[in-house]
């Protein structure tokens, strides 16, 4: 969409098709690209090449690592750690769905109903970002403490009996269970869902709603046939912005989780820093990247919004 803004405003349809491009300024787009490209090369392409190389090396810290094209590392890593991959994907998916369920109504409210409270609510959405990710996550340890009000209430309402039966929690606690990790992920990435949703909803012309009403659409039908389809770009970018970082996150699993909630990010961290098995760590990173890329591609194709985001 942004590329369209470059188009010259008054277009005379009668003009001849091929106007010779002006000589000067022909390379301007490339010059403008230069800083960004350099940045990408130094901080993205080069590290990627380095990691790709690491993933096919063998050796040890003392003897050094050499490229031996040992692709079996990928296979071994996948065979060993597929449960963590699966867990990462399912936690991230659960968090994304929760974010959408929580974020959509809020974004809708801010875009259409908030009136003069709009700015205040927006600030409230963004405000948590002024504190560190770690602090925000640690705060949940206090909120969900075993002897805290939240857990006590959930216990007396027997909610935790149900979630324990489903395997989301263990016993009468929330912390150190899958539920806590998913809640932490949802909380931490919620603004990434709300902001794109809001931008997309806010652009919808209010007159379309009126028109739908004039054509005897009930509010729900208006939402289903008009508002939601028009907000799809927001839904798609919001879900991507939530799902991708959530799948690679390890902080929530580390602080709010337990041994059976470790995600692939934790495995990669352990392999890199503790076990010093750099090839396996690099291979795991690439498998994660490839997996996410594949899922995202399918998702974008399926949602038919390729040209909208």
């Amino acid at each position: 969409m942004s590329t369209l803004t470059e188009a010259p405003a008054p277009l005379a349809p009668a003009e001849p098709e091929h106007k010779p491009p002006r000589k000067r300024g022909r390379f301007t787009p490339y010059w403008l690209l230069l800083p960004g490209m350099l940045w990408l090369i130094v901080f993205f392409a080069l590290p990627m090449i380095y990691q790709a190389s690491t993933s096919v090396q063998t050796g040890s810290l003392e003897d050094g690592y050499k490229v031996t094209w040992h692709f079996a590392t990928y296979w071994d890593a996948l065979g060993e750690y597929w449960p963590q991959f699966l867990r990462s994907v399912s936690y991230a998916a659960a968090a994304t769905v929760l974010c959408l369920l929580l974020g959509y109504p809020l974004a809708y409210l801010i875009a259409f109903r908030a009136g003069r409270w709009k700015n205040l609510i927006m600030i409230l959405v963004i405000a948590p970002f002024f504190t560190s990710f770690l602090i925000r996550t640690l705060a949940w340890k206090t909120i969900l403490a075993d002897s805290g009000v939240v857990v006590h209430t959930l216990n007396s309402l027997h909610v935790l009996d149900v979630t324990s039966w489903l395997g989301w929690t263990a016993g009468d606690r929330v912390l150190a269970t899958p539920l806590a990790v998913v809640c932490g992920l949802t909380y931490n990435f919620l603004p990434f869902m709300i902001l794109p949703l809001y931008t997309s909803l806010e652009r919808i012309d209010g007159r379309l709603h009126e028109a739908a009403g004039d054509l005897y659409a009930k509010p729900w039908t208006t939402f289903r046939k008009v508002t939601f389809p028009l907000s799809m770009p927001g839904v798609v970018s919001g879900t991507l912005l939530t799902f991708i970082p959530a799948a690679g996150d390890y902080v929530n699993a580390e602080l709010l989780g337990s041994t059976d909630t470790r995600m692939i990010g934790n495995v990669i961290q352990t392999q890199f820093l503790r076990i010093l098995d750099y090839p396996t760590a690099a291979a795991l990173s690439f498998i994660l990247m490839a997996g996410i890329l594949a899922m995202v591609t399918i998702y974008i194709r399926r949602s038919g919004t390729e040209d909208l985001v």
Partner: protein
Amino acid sequence: MEQYQPDRLTPAQAAAMRRSLRNGRAAMTRRSLLRASAGGALAAGGLGALSACGIPAAGKSQGGTSAQDHSAQEKVVNFSNWTEYIDVDDKGKGHPTLDTFRRRTGITVKYTEDINDNNEFFGKLKPQLAAGQDTGRDIIVLTDWLAARLIRLGWVQKLDPSHLPHAYTNLSPQFRDPDWDPGRAYSYPWQGISTVIAYNKKALDGVEVKSVSDLLDNPKLKGRVGFLSEMRDSMGMTLLDMGKDPAKFTDDDFDAAIARLQKAVDKGQIRRFTGNDYTSDLTKGDLAACVAWAGDVVQLKADSPDVDFVIPDSGYMTSTDNLCIPNKARHKTNAERLIDFYYEPAQAAALAAYINYVTPVDGVKPYLAKIDEDAAGNPLIVPDKAMQARSHAFRSLSQKEETTYEEKFAKLTGA
């Protein structure tokens, strides 16, 4: 933005715009650019570049390599330490012992608290040390297994005993001969760290905890027991509990201890494997009892009356954080003088009074008693003979053992 929405233009306008996008200057769309740059990166990177990478062998020169010593010309020493691991004056800014050192020697200590985690710090220093470059640091503080690894890799320098008279005389016998640095040729302890069992009286609610077995087996503590994510501390305490000596265990002993912990994990007895963050869990009562570091427990006890500790009959683990001089450090002599300075009992007492860890210096007690009577009587700070006898150290591991054991322990903790 709005006026360029394609569907609001006349069909002719839209067609013209599409043409211009496809053929004109604007033809460089994001999508084509992405494709082009991805292709370019691959081509530029190429498979040749992949094989050109590699990590050089590390251990070449056991004994370390020195740089030219600038100690005489530059009266400074760069000291990297863990956070909150030194005395602080009342204003919370200065470090009295470092000031005393400067007054006495004229050497300014550039003190940086940039170590938070052994593994991370190793990752940070590795590129420079592996390439044989100066790290910009003259003294670093490493927990013994990491110090052992750096000595093994030849990344730290041998100390000059003639600069360390106090250190040589006053080092507590308990720490004199670790198997990874016999006779302390490369390192001197900064502080000792004891691993004990801590508990929250209120959360225990009458349940008695005296040993690691109690932690692992008592069903009343299900889901409220914590272990440390530091492999040597958790495994050491478990080995002791099983009657094995952490200084001499075999592979089979290690596997048996892993199996014992795994059983507790499987039945949900162990809530988490934690780093330092167990402290808040313990004070809140989310953890009723856990394997803990004594330095933290002394602090927690002062803040919260419910927290206390117990030393199992089978004994406890003590590791050390060690002062080392990395390769190519510019101010080796100054660094050695600073190490020696902290082995004067009066200075060691000033430090011990503030930070609550095990002091590695003999003869501290009378000096410490003058500053803080309670600390001097606390066996967790100044261990008596009986305490020292129950203290155990984890044996040093070969690189292969280290990898295997860490891998097994990682599996236990979830990955």
